[in-house]
């Protein structure tokens, strides 16, 4: 087996999974921001409120990534 190629594939797969997760969390914040704007907030207040309500994005991403290794990798 070509371990080097296997390692590269795993590395890029992991990068893709992390990028997707970041995009998913950013999408959540964008949707919450939109909701607040439609409710009457200014765009700045809406984004600030959305970020506040979301919490520490880096921590959420980290906890989401730290799933038990016995759970199989994403499709």
């Amino acid at each position, binding site marked *: 087996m070509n371990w080097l190629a296997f390692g590269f594939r795993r590395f890029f797969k992991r990068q893709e999974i992390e990028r997707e997760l970041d995009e998913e969390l950013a999408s959540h914040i964008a949707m919450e921001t939109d909701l607040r704007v439609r409710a009457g907030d200014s765009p700045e207040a809406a984004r600030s409120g959305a970020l506040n309500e979301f919490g520490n994005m880096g921590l959420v991403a980290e*906890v989401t990534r730290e799933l038990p290794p016995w759970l199989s990798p*994403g499709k």
Partner: protein
Amino acid sequence: MAISDSSRVSTTMTESRPYQNRIEILQGTLDLLVLQTLARGEQHGHGISQAIRARSGELLSVETGSLYPALHRLEKKGWLDAEWKSSENNQRAKYYRLTKAGRRQLAAEQGRWQLLVQAVSGVLDPA
């Protein structure tokens, strides 16, 4: 009956008054809320949190720090499928839906919930 999940997640109980209660609920209960919400149709994470808040009469607010790990865990267990799509506001979002295995898990979680309700009711019964 013992509840097998020992992990805990926080869900904030929101009220219109400034005072807030923080209620610790078992991880299995959050799974139940998510699976039940998706039984009504596919939805993205933001939509799921909004739906839980609305259907609970604004009493339950699931923290994103609990919701996204739960969604990813349920997906990895094969109970949810996910697909990137354009949302109602033309934003790219990851939509989740129940798989067949997810529907079976939902039924199992509903059963456990009923048992928990009965158990707590039994303790609270003044008789």
